[in-house]
């Protein structure tokens, strides 16, 4: 196995999936040193995508051309503003739902300092937008207006190593955006009432799903946190039903929403992915995702599903009085350990051999 900092060849396609346990980030090398970053994850004060690129001797400011924040949840925007500031030439993309007045109101309500703004994902979103606004006001030559993406929006179109690259948003659908606005309105708490945070596991309907077409050879499907719904107008049903999306089958799949049951769609695996697709799932330690049952479901879909780590219980030894009080005060209690760094699954392929070469680092592993 090559070291984590082994550089990518110019003609090589790479998908690196980072999963520090409370978030995820994906870096895609399209060729010729041109990278796309989807979401941002950090651990112990380190922004993983930035560190990965820097360890390979790359300048993020030069090589990252597109940054997509699939949605505003904490596990997807951790240190997003740092990533944006270090990749000042990159085009920033976020969900069209974030343009709504309802979203601005919850940002104003919940990024207020006394609501725990230091750890609020909305404060991170606000910081990222402040960064962009400052660049705009300063007439910074590198400023690019953000894309508020919805389904079928072409996010980028370029050529790398002679291959045409097309990046397209497959979601949110128009109905997803409307539903998100309704949800934002429900989150708003009257200003005279105390409120200290937003649900960290609220619905993910407005998440951006990204499709990356690299030449004629490879189609990548990055599922964000999009969930399956009962409506044909929303979630994965809307993506599958679309006739405007690329109709080829994807050779790589980032499993949505940490493999949770509410994001499982048989139709996605049957109609959008090649048989025995290479796939990656990131764990979410807080909710213990993916569970054993969810892992088995993923294994039934493909023998090449890899996880950045799996939930594992931690045996913390506390004072006996504390342990006893925990037992007496709770109905359920579990301690789960965050993975040791690094937790990365790396997929590489060249156009010559055509097969994915998969490497796992840290606690990342293939699901069995």
């Amino acid at each position, binding site marked *: 196995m090559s070291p984590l900092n082994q550089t990518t060849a110019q003609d090589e396609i790479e998908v690196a999936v980072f999963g520090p346990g*409370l978030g995820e980030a994906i870096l895609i090398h399209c060729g010729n040193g041109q990278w796309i970053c989807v979401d941002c994850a950090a651990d112990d004060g380190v922004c993983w995508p930035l560190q990965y690129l820097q360890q390979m001797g790359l300048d993020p400011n030069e090589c990252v051309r597109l940054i997509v924040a699939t949605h505003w949840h904490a596990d997807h925007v951790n240190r997003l503003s740092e990533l944006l500031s270090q990749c000042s030439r990159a085009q920033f993309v976020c969900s069209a739902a974030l343009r709504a007045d309802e979203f601005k109101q919850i940002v104003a309500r919940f990024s207020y300092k006394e609501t725990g703004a230091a750890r609020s994902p909305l404060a991170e979103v606000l910081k990222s937008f402040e960064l962009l606004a400052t660049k705009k006001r300063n007439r910074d030559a590198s400023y690019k207006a*953000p894309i508020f993406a919805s389904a079928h929006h072409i996010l980028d179109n370029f050529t790398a190593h002679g291959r045409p690259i097309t990046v397209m948003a497959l979601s949110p659908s128009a109905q997803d955006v409307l539903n998100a606005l309704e949800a934002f309105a429900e989150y708003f708490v009257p200003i005279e009432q105390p409120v200290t*945070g937003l649900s960290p596991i609220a619905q993910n309907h407005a998440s951006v799903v990204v499709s990356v077409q690299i030449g004629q050879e490879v189609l990548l499907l990055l599922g964000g946190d999009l969930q399956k719904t009962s409506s044909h107008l929303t979630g994965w049903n809307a993506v599958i039903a679309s006739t405007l999306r690329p109709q080829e089958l994807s050779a790589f799949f980032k499993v949505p929403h940490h493999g949770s049951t509410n994001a499982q769609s048989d139709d996605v695996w049957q109609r959008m992915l090649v048989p025995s697709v290479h796939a990656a799932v990131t764990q979410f330690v807080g909710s213990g995702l993916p569970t054993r049952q969810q892992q088995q479901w993923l294994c039934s879909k493909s023998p090449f599903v890899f996880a950045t780590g799996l939930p594992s219980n931690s045996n913390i030894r506390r004072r006996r009085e*504390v342990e006893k*009080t925990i037992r007496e005060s709770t109905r359920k209690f*579990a301690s*789960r350990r965050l993975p040791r760094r690094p937790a990365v699954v790396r997929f590489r392929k060249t156009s010559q051999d055509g097969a994915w070469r998969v490497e796992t680092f840290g606690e990342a592993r293939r699901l069995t």
Partner: protein
Amino acid sequence: MDAPETFNFAENEPEVQWANARRTVVLPMSKRAEAEQPLPGGTTQRGQQTGTAKQLSVHPLEMEPSGNFQQKWSTQRSHVPGKGQHVVPTAEERFWLLNRWQGQVLTVGSDSFEAQLFDPGQPAVIEYAEFAKSELPPDALMLLRPGAMFYWMIGYRDRGSRQRTRESVIWMRRTGRMDAAAFDAALGHVEDIWRAIESPQSNYSAG
């Protein structure tokens, strides 16, 4: 060694500060509880203990409500034959912290709620718990909603120098009220930023 610390359950939200140092407190030597009885109002009495001093280590806290830690000593005058009156410090009601978490509510059910917990002394671990709603006092129940943050503390409460109980205390954070002027200012700031980036060159697509 740091001074002994107590937690004062004031109505006001504590100031939150970062603290990295490991704390050492002096606690009386514990004895096995002889009686267990429930206490109303968000605490559960686990036992009663007395004894001599013993050193305990308390985990460092990431988000520490330091403003509520106070030494609460009163003075009592006593007469010592031949030496007249002198001042003897006696402890008033104090809470000796054994373990503390910062929690965030995930879901609220009919008679329980689920939360994820962060123990600042265990940075590589995330914990999950389901609590009965009866662990909360009535005014805290009104604050219970997904996303709400709270502190969970386990410790000993001394009432005077003769009674000690082991308690589990959930303290819902009470911040987040805004007056109209503060909200208008915050919203104005947000709208200014969005307006700046949503210029004619913005690439918004309606889908």
